[in-house]
Every structure is written in structure tokens, then in C-alpha cells.
């Protein structure tokens, strides 16, 4: 399993990306992450919720109570315009970083 310190700085962008795709609730985000990485990276719930509540505070995402099947209530998170802008900025940053590391490490 990958060292979580390295990925930590990018978790915000990862979560924003998942919420941009569609509105999601907390556990869905966590399971989505482990599913897509084939369990190579598993986010701790504690970490996830602290990031989500911070994003909420910064108004990058909004939450609302939605209904899942069988009428169970779920708190869904929805991206805001500000959040989208922030995500694209972060993504650009990541692309640049990847470019740089590629040149330096692969050469």
C-alpha cells in the first residue's frame, strides 16, 4: 500500500473530482477510491471526513440531504462553481508536477 503522506496533498483534488462526476455521499467517496485503485490506496474515513468538512467550510462543495433507495437518507455532496475552478487549478498544478517529475526521474 502506498505511503499516505505522499498522496495526502492531492486528496482534496481527488475528492473534488469524484464529486464533480456526480453528487456523492461520504461512504460512496471512500468506496469509490478503493475500488478505482483496486485497494492499492484506501482512504481512512477519519481523513476523508476531515477533508470533506474542510471543503464544505471553504464552500468548494455543498451538502444536501438526498434519498437513496429504500428511502434511506444520505447526506450528498455537490460541487460549487468555486469548487470546480479550484479543481481545475489543482489539476493543472498536478499536470505540471507530473511533467517535471517525469523529466527528472525517468531520464
Amino acid at each position, binding site marked *: 500500500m502506498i505511503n499516505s503522506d505522499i498522496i495526502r496533498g492531492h486528496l482534496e483534488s481527488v475528492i473534488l473530482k469524484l464529486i464533480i462526476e456526480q453528487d456523492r*455521499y461520504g*461512504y460512496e467517496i471512500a468506496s469509490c477510491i478503493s475500488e478505482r485503485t483496486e485497494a492499492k490506496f484506501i482512504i481512512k*474515513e*477519519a481523513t476523508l471526513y*476531515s477533508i470533506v*468538512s*474542510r471543503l464544505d467550510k471553504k464552500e468548494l462543495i455543498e451538502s444536501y440531504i438526498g434519498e437513496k433507495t429504500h428511502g434511506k437518507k444520505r447526506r450528498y455532496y455537490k460541487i460549487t462553481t468555486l469548487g470546480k475552478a479550484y479543481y481545475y487549478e489543482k489539476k493543472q498544478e498536478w499536470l505540471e508536477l507530473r511533467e517535471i517529475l517525469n523529466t527528472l526521474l525517468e531520464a
Partner: protein
Amino acid sequence: MKKIDNFIKHTFKGLPKEKREETIKSVTETLVEKVEDLVDSGLTEIEAIDKTVLEFGNAEDYFELIEKKQKKERRLKSLRHYRNDLLFSSVSATIIIGALIFINLVYADVVIWFVVPALAVLFWPLAVLYNLLNKRANRRNADE
């Protein structure tokens, strides 16, 4: 679900009161969602609760991101502390050297030996001063 409530309450009991209720409420909500999902996927409720509690991590994980910075700042000694250290060491050194001179002159005024221990004692405030100047230079560099 009682178990989840207790677990969360226990995990966050160290929080300041204003923040505690809100955090407990929102985290409990999300964990209950997870338990319900796991039950839907075929686990028994007890298994689901255990899994949820296990995978949560601990309160440190929750606050690591938020408070790491603040803690670090708090731990840093401020310049004022170093200035106080310097004051304390100079006053103490002066007292010790004064006592040495006094003993030297009263009991054995043929040999002036107090200079040697006095030199040694002088290095104390000097070291503290050196430290203070270093810290000040560091701080200035960091500010720029």
C-alpha cells in the same frame, strides 16, 4: 447503532465543546450511512459496525490535517523566550562571578584565581546570546 454513537463520543471527547457537538453529529451521520450500505451489501449489522469502527482510524487522523500546522507553531519557542533566557543567564552569571570575587578577596587575596572559574561561567550567557542571535537570523530569513 448505539455502539457507533459511543465510539464517536469516545473518539472525540478531547475536543473543545463548541466544536465537539457539530463534529460528532456529522461524523456519526456518515458512519451510520456506511453501516447501512454494508448491511445492504450482505453483512450482518454487527459485522458492519465492527468493520466501520475498524476502518475509521483514530481522532489523530481526523485532526492531523487540520491541526498539524497549529501545533508546530505553538511548539516553537518565541524570540521573547530566548530573550528571557539571556536575561536570566546574565543575571545568574553576574551573581556567581560576584560571589567568586568576594570569596577570593576575603579568604585568599594573595592569588587572584577567580578569573578562571569566572571565564567558564561567562560562557553560559555567551552561549545563550549566540543561540538568540542565530534564532533571530533564522526568523528573518524565514520572513523573507
